[in-house]
C-alpha cells in the first residue's frame, strides 16, 4: 500500500483518507482486511495520532471501514456497492473529459467508441 503525505496544503487527515480509499478501490486493501493500527500508522507516517484517528473516523462514517473494539479496523464489506459506484464515477469523470475534447475537435461518437474498443483490445493482447 502506498501513502504519500505532501505539504501541499491539503489537510493530512484528508490525504490519509484519500490514500486508504484508493487502496480499497484498487484492491490493495481487500475486503475484511485489517488496517494498520492508528498508532502504528502514525509512527510510520510520522504524523499525529489524532490526525490518523480523524481519517479513520471519517472512513468509518462513510462506510469504508468498521472498527471493532479491541480488534482494530477492517475494510468493510457493506460498502461494496459504493465502491463500485465510485469506480464508475472515476471513469465517468475521465470519459466526460474525453467527450468534451472530442466535441472540441469535432470527433464523432463512433470514432471515440472505436478508439476505446481498439485500446481495450491492444491492452488485452499485450
Amino acid at each position, binding site marked *: 500500500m502506498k501513502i504519500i503525505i505532501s505539504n501541499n496544503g491539503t489537510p493530512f487527515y484528508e490525504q490519509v483518507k484519500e490514500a486508504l480509499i484508493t487502496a480499497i478501490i484498487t484492491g490493495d486493501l481487500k475486503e475484511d482486511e485489517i488496517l494498520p493500527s492508528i498508532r*502504528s500508522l*502514525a*509512527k510510520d507516517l*510520522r504524523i499525529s*495520532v*489524532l490526525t490518523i484517528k480523524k481519517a479513520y473516523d471519517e472512513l468509518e462514517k462513510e462506510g469504508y471501514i468498521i472498527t471493532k473494539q479491541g480488534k482494530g479496523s477492517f475494510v468493510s464489506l457493506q460498502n461494496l456497492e459504493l465502491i463500485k459506484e465510485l469506480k464508475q464515477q472515476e471513469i465517468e469523470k475521465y470519459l466526460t473529459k474525453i467527450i468534451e475534447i472530442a466535441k472540441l475537435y469535432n470527433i464523432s461518437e463512433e470514432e471515440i467508441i472505436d478508439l476505446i474498443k481498439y485500446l481495450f483490445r491492444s491492452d488485452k493482447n499485450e
Partner: protein
Amino acid sequence: MNNAIEIKDLIKKYDDKFTLKVPKLTITKGTIVGLIGENGAGKTTLIKCLLGIINKYEGQIKIFSKEEKEEYLAKEDIGVVLDNMFFPDILKPKDISIIMHDIYKTWDKNLFYNYLQKFNISPQTQIKKLSTGTKKKLEIATALSHKPKLLILDEPTSGLDPVVRREILDLFLEYMQNPENTILLSTHITTDLEHIADYIIFINKGNIILNATRDEILDNYGILKCGEQEFNTIAKEDIISYQKNRYDYQILVKDKKNMQKKYKNFIIDNITLEDLMVLKIKGANNERIN
C-alpha cells in the same frame, strides 16, 4: 482517569515582571503535547512546577490524579529530560545503569543496554567524551529505561542536527505505541512538532494563548499576504493579527478555506508554527503601536 496532567488555577510569580498563569490545563493520556513559546515565555517554569522542582506556587497540579506538591524525588511514573545533563560527566553509561537501578524499582537494564546499542553508545565511555547529540540520546534512553508512563522533556532537540532530531522523534513515536503513554515536550524548534504533536500549547509572557490540536491549528490558520491598498479592504474582524513589512502585509487569518473564498484574489499561504508564533507575538506588538 483519562488525564495524565491536570492543572487548576496555577500561579507562579517570580517578581513584578514575570508571572506564569495557568487557570486550567488538562493533558490527555496517549497524546504528544508540544509546548511552544519564546525564550522566557514560561515553558521551563511550567515544566519545573509539574516536576515539583519549583514547589512554591498557588493552585493545584495533579499528575495521574495525584497531587504532587512534595519534594521532587525520583517518580517512578515520570521520565524527565531537562535541558542540561544531570549526571557528572566522569560517569560512564554503565555507571548510570547501576545508579538508576538503585533509584527506580522499574529500571530495566536490558532495555537501557538495547538503547545504547541502538544509538551506538559504548557503556564504557565517559559521558564527557560524548558528542552533544549522543549525550541527549543517552539522557532520553535513561529516561525511557525505567518505563515511565509520562515523559516530560525540556528542549530535547535544541542544538541537535536534523539527523539526530529525526532519530529522537522516531524514539518518541515508538514510545507512543503504548496508548497509556504520554509525552509533554517544550521546544522552540517548532518543525519537530508540526507533524507528530497531537496538541500544541502556545505560551506567551506567562499566559497560555493557544491550546488546540495540531490539525485545528495547521489545517485552519493561514497567512494572507497583500499590499497596503488591499490591506485596507480587508474586514477588521477577519484579522487576528498582522505584520506590516516594507513591501507587504502578512495577516494571520482563521478558517483559511472560507477566507480564500471571501478574498479570491489574495494569496493565502499555509501556516507553520513558526509563522504563527511570530505573527501572534510580533503582530500583537504592531497593534499596540498603531
